[in-house]
């Protein structure tokens, strides 16, 4: 049971990490246009935050919408 538990937890953590990789690449492309400063401006930070939240909003709406169709 311990090893099953361990694998389940690691697998869930890994899934979250891989989603973070995907979201970072997508939102970085959309929000960051300037590579001359290693710090995020507050506008960039705000944009990244909204980007991931809007993407998750969209995902939930799509899943619910498809469930209603079936």
């Amino acid at each position, binding site marked *: 049971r311990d090893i099953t538990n361990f694998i389940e937890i690691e697998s869930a953590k890994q899934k979250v990490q891989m989603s973070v990789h995907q979201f970072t690449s997508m939102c970085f492309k*959309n*929000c960051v246009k300037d590579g001359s400063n290693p710090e995020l401006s507050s*506008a960039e930070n*705000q*944009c990244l935050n*909204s*980007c991931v939240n*809007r*993407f998750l*909003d*969209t*995902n939930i*709406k*799509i*899943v619910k*919408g*498809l469930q209603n*169709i079936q």
Partner: protein
Amino acid sequence: QIQQDLAVANATELVNQATENCFNLCMKAPYNENLAESNQCVETCLGKYMRSWNAISQAYVQRLQNTPDV
């Protein structure tokens, strides 16, 4: 069992592609447009995406029947 696995794979693919496309169509960086309006756009976008899926599917199957070497 096989058919169910394939159906899950298809549904997952549809959710992922519709989410990506409707996010790109309805949400624009820096993501500060009206949220209610954007959510409405996602709903109509999903309808349009499903219709596009059907149109493409029809066109492709028709093509396969006419030219089996595709």
